């Protein structure tokens, strides 16, 4: 895997939403939804992003696709820098990167037929004839397991899982290389979740797709992802290959998060020692000084309340931002940022 090409490179991505108050709507602060996030995604892999509600996972995904105008940072997709591009210049890049949305009820226009929904990207980016577009639409419907005779129906006539398939077909229409799945299974039934995830995996195998899979379902991420990034309050606290992360979590937050995953075996479940975090997530508009997690960390030290920990590589491909590993000589010298990330995984 060492020779794999980086499809997505994100460096120090920041997405702040301004807070304006008072009569004059003066700019008095920012909600730091995403605050300095860096990661790479290699071609053909799945990067899972996990974290609790409100930690900036979805915002991060949308910012990477430039659905927002980002505050700072660089985003390189397929070798093209898109961080500062205008929306009209971005339009040409759109076919490479697509998104599957969280809520299958809300992400399909209720007044368009399935054929029109799946065909919208084709209308926008190709000058094909109607017949050719229709052929492609049928092809996509076959690919995601939808009956071709559904093409004239409207979204309200479908179940959640079927709608999500429509959304996936729409994302696939232009043969993208990179798809952001923004909690695509969160709104679905458990039985349907498995179908959709399997569909996503099959498509990845057959089309060579690269996913950024945003979810709060740790077991599902373990199933689908190759590498996993854990976010807390707008920052990535740990990024590691899946097995390393689930076997030896380094960051206290990851430990706590993983200890919360229920085990199907009641005997094991009864013996599990859960790490219960105290308190609430601080407001992203007013993050604590030092480490963002210092207010709730069970292993907090004095330094955590003063200095923001560096994001460094502890083991090959295993990054974390925590002061516990400041003297991590035995696993690899602390490194700055993630510039050397290329040699990992």
């Amino acid at each position: 895997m060492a020779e794999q090409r980086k499809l997505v490179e994100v460096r120090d991505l920041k997405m702040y939403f301004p807070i304006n108050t008072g009569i004059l709507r003066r700019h008095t602060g920012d909600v730091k939804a995403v605050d300095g996030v860096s990661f790479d995604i290699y071609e053909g892999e799945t990067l899972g992003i996990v974290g609790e509600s409100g930690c900036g996972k979805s915002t991060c995904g949308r910012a990477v696709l430039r659905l927002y105008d980002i505050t700072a940072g660089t985003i390189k997709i397929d070798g093209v820098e898109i961080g500062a591009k205008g929306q009209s210049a971005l339009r040409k890049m759109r076919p490479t990167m697509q998104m599957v949305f969280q809520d299958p009820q809300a992400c399909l226009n209720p007044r368009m037929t399935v054929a029109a929904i799946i065909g919208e990207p084709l209308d926008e980016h190709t000058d094909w004839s109607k017949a050719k577009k229709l052929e492609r639409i049928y092809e996509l419907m076959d690919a995601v397991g939808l009956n071709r005779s559904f093409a004239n129906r409207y979204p309200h006539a479908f179940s959640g899982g079927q709608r999500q398939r429509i959304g996936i077909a729409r994302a696939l229409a232009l043969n993208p290389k990179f798809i952001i799945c923004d909690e695509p299974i969160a709104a679905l039934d458990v039985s349907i979740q498995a179908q959709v995830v399997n569909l996503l995996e099959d498509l990845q195998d057959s089309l060579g797709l690269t996913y950024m899979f945003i979810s709060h379902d740790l077991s599902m991420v373990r199933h689908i992802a190759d590498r996993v990034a854990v976010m807390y309050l707008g920052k990535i606290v740990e990024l590691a290959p899946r097995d390393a992360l689930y076997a030896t979590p380094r960051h206290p937050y990851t430990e706590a998060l993983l200890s919360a995953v229920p085990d199907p075996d009641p005997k094991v479940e009864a013996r599990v020692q859960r790490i219960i975090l105290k308190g609430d997530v601080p407001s992203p508009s007013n993050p604590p000084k030092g480490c963002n997690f210092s207010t709730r960390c069970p292993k907090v030290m004095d330094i955590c309340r003063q200095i923001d920990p560096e994001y460094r590589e502890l083991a090959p491909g295993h990054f974390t931002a925590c002061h516990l590993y400041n003297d991590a000589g035995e696993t690899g010298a602390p490194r700055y940022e993630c510039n050397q990330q290329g040699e990992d995984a």
Partner: protein
Amino acid sequence: MTDAAKPLNPDEAFRPPRNQWWDVWDQFKTHRGALAGLAVFVSIILFVLVGPMIWQVDPGQLNIRMRNQGPSWDYPLGTDQLGRDLLARLMYGGRISVAVGLVAMFLGLVIGTLIGVLAGYFKLLDSPLMRLTDLFLALPLLPLLLILVALFRDTLARTFGESIGVFFLICFAIAITSWMQTARIVRGDVLALKEREYVLAARSIGTPSLRINTRHVLPNVLSPIMVSATLGIASAIITESALSFLGLGFPPDFPTWGRILYEGRDWIEQYPARVVWPGLLISLTVLSVNYIGDGLRDALDPRIRGR
């Protein structure tokens, strides 16, 4: 499109996408009120368009000796105080009233929708456009109309000729004073719609703002627009009547339903029919358009369609 799709289809039940408007028409047909409304509206249109060709009587023909006649074979609906034939006047007057109603409603709708969508979609335009709307809402409308008509009537009449000039002026005047409700309703809906995920999805596809609006936002605000449209026709016809009554609409020898109504008002006790007929026609027009709008709104919503 249909031909090309056929080879793909081994299934009998399968049918290639057809034009969405066929679905709309199928649903519209099932709405009885809408069909009745459509029938009434079409007969009114025929009455005012084809009627004068069959009943060839000059609506301006004075005949003082035959004034205030009751219904007879010569004058099916009787005559007015100057001996003009009421049936002919209603036919000719209907042309203008219906045309003013439709054109003014359409203009007002276009202005209102445009302003509403711009204000709702583009944050920067929101507050200036909404303050403009408030400004128009706060203006007393009748004086404004009077000033508009008084200022521009002669100029327009000279450029386009008496009737066309006044027609445009009145339609414009009614539209400019009636778009505010639509704008507000549309803005509110657009504000809610533009945060929906399918708009975000369209943006991730790379759809430009204009097409996001025409493809995703406008079709979904159609229901409130349709409602204000049907109400708009009614108020346009009535405003035109009021203007005619004040002597600022069409010239006095031009019959419109509103003018016939107001002229008949002085004689309402002796000859109630003279008020009843134009009133009935105005009401029927408004009612039928309302029903058509109702059916159309249901037919355009795929969630209701097919139920």
